[in-house]
């Protein structure tokens, strides 16, 4: 019955879209945090994702996580551990490079140093990509877990042969993504340090007068943003073969998600990423495989053109 097959396909794509979207959402949250707090367009975010994948790989294989945590928990624990490692990396990168052209130092510069910051992060991206090539080689890698190739089969009530397959690795990834996003949201809205970060974002000058170390706030935000994206990278690595140039595959998705979410909003960024995931998977139902990403861009442009402040953002403008 074609109608049932249609529904089955739709539900399958919907489930895949939600799982994928959660992961994209988490990537976007990392980038969105950096953008929201310091108004920096970080072109190296895709490379942080890539580093997250490799760090996960080396934690899992090098430290032998799988041997004492087992093949099920090991890879995911590795991904989560990649977070703090890259958080330190991001913190230091900001401390020694990015802060020189952004934040307090760039307040007076032309267009507040946007040009310098763009090209700086492009340079960082180039170094990380090609440095990765030297360090890790170009052979595609993956972090294997038995869950990657096992799925739950959920029967549909209206037909005994119809079923939706749910990949177990992706479910675990999605759960971790949602949990991490939730934790970050709590941190930003409730924790003292998170409030300081928001104050620094809202009005850097006023924040300085209130005794907030804005540069430090930026460093922390940059570190956390990097770490969150790295965890997302580690999770992606459980099902997606990667090489040092893998960042380019995702950086556009991240930016599209953040813009859709209304730049600067954490929950917005998550829903932006979710939207991208859903569009990507659902468009596969009607479009040829190669045009999946075109669908993302078309939907992205349509939404942004109709709502310039983003799907989940609010418009604030004053003359």
């Amino acid at each position, binding site marked *: 019955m074609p109608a049932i097959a249609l529904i089955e396909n739709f539900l399958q794509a919907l489930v895949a879209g939600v799982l994928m979207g959660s992961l994209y959402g988490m990537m976007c949250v990392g980038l969105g945090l950096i*953008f929201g707090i310091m*108004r920096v*367009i970080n*072109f190296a975010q895709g490379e942080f994702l890539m580093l997250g994948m490799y760090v996960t790989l080396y934690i899992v294989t090098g430290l032998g996580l799988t041997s004492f945590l087992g093949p099920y928990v090991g890879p995911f624990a590795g991904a989560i551990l990649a977070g703090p490692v890259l958080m330190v990396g991001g913190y230091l990168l900001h401390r020694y*490079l990015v802060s*020189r*052209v952004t934040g307090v130092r*760039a307040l007076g*510069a*032309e*267009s507040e*140093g*946007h*040009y*310098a910051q*763009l*090209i*700086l992060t*492009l*340079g*960082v*991206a*180039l*170094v990380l*990509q*090609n*440095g*990765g*090539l*030297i360090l890790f080689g*170009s052979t595609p890698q993956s972090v294997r877990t038995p869950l990657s190739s096992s799925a739950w089969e959920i029967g549909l009530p209206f037909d005994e042969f119809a079923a939706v397959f749910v990949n177990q690795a992706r479910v675990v990834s999605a759960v971790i993504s949602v949990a991490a996003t939730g934790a970050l949201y709590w941190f930003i809205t409730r924790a003292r340090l998170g409030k300081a970060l928001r104050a620094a974002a809202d009005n850097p000058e006023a924040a300085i007068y209130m005794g907030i170390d804005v540069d430090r706030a930026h460093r922390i935000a940059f570190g956390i943003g990097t770490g969150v994206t790295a965890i997302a990278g580690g999770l992606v690595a459980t099902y997606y073969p990667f090489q*040092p140039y893998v960042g*380019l595959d995702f*950086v*556009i998705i991240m*930016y*599209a998600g*953040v*813009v859709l979410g209304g*730049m600067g909003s954490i929950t917005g960024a998550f829903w932006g990423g979710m939207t991208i995931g859903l569009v990507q998977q659902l468009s596969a139902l009607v479009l*040829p495989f*190669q*045009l*999946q*990403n*075109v669908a993302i*861009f*078309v939907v*992205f*442009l349509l939404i*942004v*053109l109709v709502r*310039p402040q*983003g799907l989940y953002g609010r418009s604030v403008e004053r*003359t």
Partner: protein
Amino acid sequence: MSALGGRGRVATSLAAIAVFTLVYAVGSAFVTNKYYQLMLTLVPIWAVMGLSWNILSGYAGLVSFGHAAFFGLGAYTVTLLLVHLDLTPWIGIPIGMMVGAVAAAAIGLPTFRLRGHYFALSMLAYPLALLYVFEWLGYQEVALPMKRTDAGWYMQFSDYHVYIGVALVMLVVALLVSLAVERSRFGMALLAIKQNEPAAEAAGIDTLRWKMRAIVLSGALAALAGGLYAVVLLVVTPQTVFGMLTSAQALVVTLFGGVGTMWGPVIGASILIPLSETLQAHLGNVIPGIQGVVYGLAIIFVILVAPEGVLWRVRDRLRRRDPATERDAHPAPPSASTRPIRHARPAEAGPPVLEVSDLSKSFGGLKAVEAVSFTVPAGSILGIIGPNGAGKTTLFNLLNGFSRPDGGRVVFQGRDLVGLKPNHICRLGVGRTFQVVRAFGRMSMLQNVVCGALVASRSDAEAVRIANGALEQVGLAARADASASTLSTKELRLMELARAVASRPRLLLLDETLAGLGRQEIEEMIELIRSLASDGTTVVIIEHTMHAMVRLAERLLVLDHGRVLTSGVPSEVTRDPAVIEAYLGKKWMTAGAAG
């Protein structure tokens, strides 16, 4: 700095272009190594690409991450025309440029609704969408067919020097186009848009039209670079022409060399392209990836040393060493040639210039302006007062077109202004200043005022003349060359006033022009506004300084919570108990009683 570039500076630039071209051509004539010849061809191609990006993103400040869209369309147009229709690139490249221009118009029109980062990132989507579309169409890798006969007709030369020559000619074309933009009201308008778009719009600059022109020109130039790239490389893939690295390359060569100047992309390309190609050739085989690392490090290093590009950095260095070349003084035209702005003196309480009826605007649940009606007779001064948040500035935004009212009419000289854009309203004769001065910070005072004069003038020279006249009128002629970022509050207010006056308005909307001024300065400003009004300009002014307002305005309009509380001559209004309660407070009443 001259306002629109004097003739002498244009001649210097032309000479510089000629010298550069000559040196480059002669220098490359001695290069026989094929690899270096290719490199010497790529430098002008990427310089053209950088110049293209610079017109939109450097001059107008609309950073684009998607210039690969135009580059790729140019490359594929040339390639596909040659493959399918056997059409020579000599014709294919111009057609490609047209495709690039049309695509730019189609992309610009919707995307210019977005601002800042949103615009920049949305531009990313276009080339990437095109990339997948071209892959899907089956153009993964298209080679340009080799032509054995009539090779020159197909732009296939056995002597590589010809390629260098062709690329160089195209670079010269792009440089001349950039020069023409830089030294005309086109460049002036783009610069104003970059520095303060609302102010540009209020000064009568049709921002959307100039932005559209910029992107169309930019798209055509990028397509030129792309078309030539295809001809030289002989093979096109979606990744190489639409990929993110192509967009990034345009940005990198320009930012590296210097933004907003035509030599920036040329310098950037001349340093970076040889650097990356040489690294690729010498290190690429030893350790794959090392060239990318070195290239990336070089970019990082330079940007830390010179955040605004190599050219600006070097220029600043030279200027510091030799103060004589600091600024080329602008020869102020003789004041005799400046016409004071003077309209016919209207009769007392003449016909209304402005009739506002039932004007309303709400933001969400907040009624910012509610059913406001008033008329302003020609040549009079109307003062608008009211507590903070009474809707005064919102009212101005409705009058000059920044926001659209929910209801009501604004009739200016018999014409309904509702729905018109600010630049249109300015051209009809409504000038405006802002509560927080909106200066074009990187321009001189004169240039700021010239931006306002563009609408009132046919030629650029006339604009400069009008601007000088307006500066003289506000008493700032002596400071015409001072950079706007160095001015005092009073000078800023006066400059903004001069900019508004330079558009030859019949109606001036002044938003808290006296704010932040000292007692003596206020007196001078009042005198100035009075003299403007006596010359026939009608003035509507928002002000908090009650003492000044009472003496300046002929009538007062009191707003509170978006509504008209009362209106009338100052002496009556200030005695109105409702006004006293809402705005002036008890202190005024006792002071008034005492006085």
